[in-house]
């Protein structure tokens, strides 16, 4: 088993109303010094068997096809090291 993490973020030039709402709430709670908040999604995929190049290619395809919309989002795929 291996865990592959896919992070999906709105592209930098895309308006992120959710991030803006969070950013607006922080000072109201007394948190200062945050200049911007962007909100994205994190997917954790548990992959069976050995994590081959083929499997990783499949995960990238999943990320580009379903997990993200390339028109508005960027994604990043990485393997999470097992922690005991």
């Amino acid at each position, binding site marked *: 088993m291996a865990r592959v993490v896919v992070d999906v973020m*709105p592209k930098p030039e895309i308006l992120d*109303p959710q991030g*803006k709402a969070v950013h607006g709430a922080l000072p109201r709670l007394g948190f200062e010094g945050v200049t911007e908040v962007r909100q994205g999604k994190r997917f954790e995929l548990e992959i069976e068997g050995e994590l081959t190049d083929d499997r990783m290619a499949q995960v990238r395809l999943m990320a580009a096809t*379903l997990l993200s919309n390339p*028109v*508005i989002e960027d994604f990043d795929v990485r393997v999470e090291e097992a922690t005991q």
Partner: protein
Amino acid sequence: MRVGVVTFPGSLDDVDAARAVTVAGGEAVALWHGDHDLHGVDAVVLPGGFSYGDYLRCGAIARFAPVMTEVIAAAQEGLPVLGICNGFQILCESHLLPGALIRNDARRFVCRDQRLRLDNVGTAWTSAYEQGQEVVIPLKSGEGGYIADADTLDRLEGDGRIVARYLEHNPNGAMRDIAGVTNERGNVVGLMPHPEHAVDDLCGSVTDGLGFFRSVLAVATA
């Protein structure tokens, strides 16, 4: 003229869309998201609502429903397809239309009678209107802000593929006030406002939406 209306899990406006087809003089055919064929319909409406609970992204899961394989293939062959609200989101996710729809810039769900101008009456769904005609059609959406990169927007404007624009007030931050767009061929139209809610004097302030359904009926009889 048989017009299919697809019901996805979470569709809300499929019954209104079917009724609008009937009011316009067509025969509405119920299509199910799990269908593997289109039952010989002459056009398809993807209705508004929250297909699959808007999980992941609006329209992202519906785009991979079995019936969408058929809709996408038929649309590429010229079948008239109208996506309303969530249906518009599905068409963008399917890449039948360019761009995407993101959360309203004001971060609020918007529900209002929206004034629009029809900028392309050459599509399968807008031929019953006059070029530049102003209409009022209800808008009700939380993620209706149309966006695309500048090159795509320029191309859409240059090719006259912006079907409708918001007038007086941009309700959701849509780039260049875009309320609806069409594909190159003019058979696929995506529209954020809901023409199916504006077809009957009895239950609405206007009947300006009827033209979308009359237009497609005219395509079949032409």
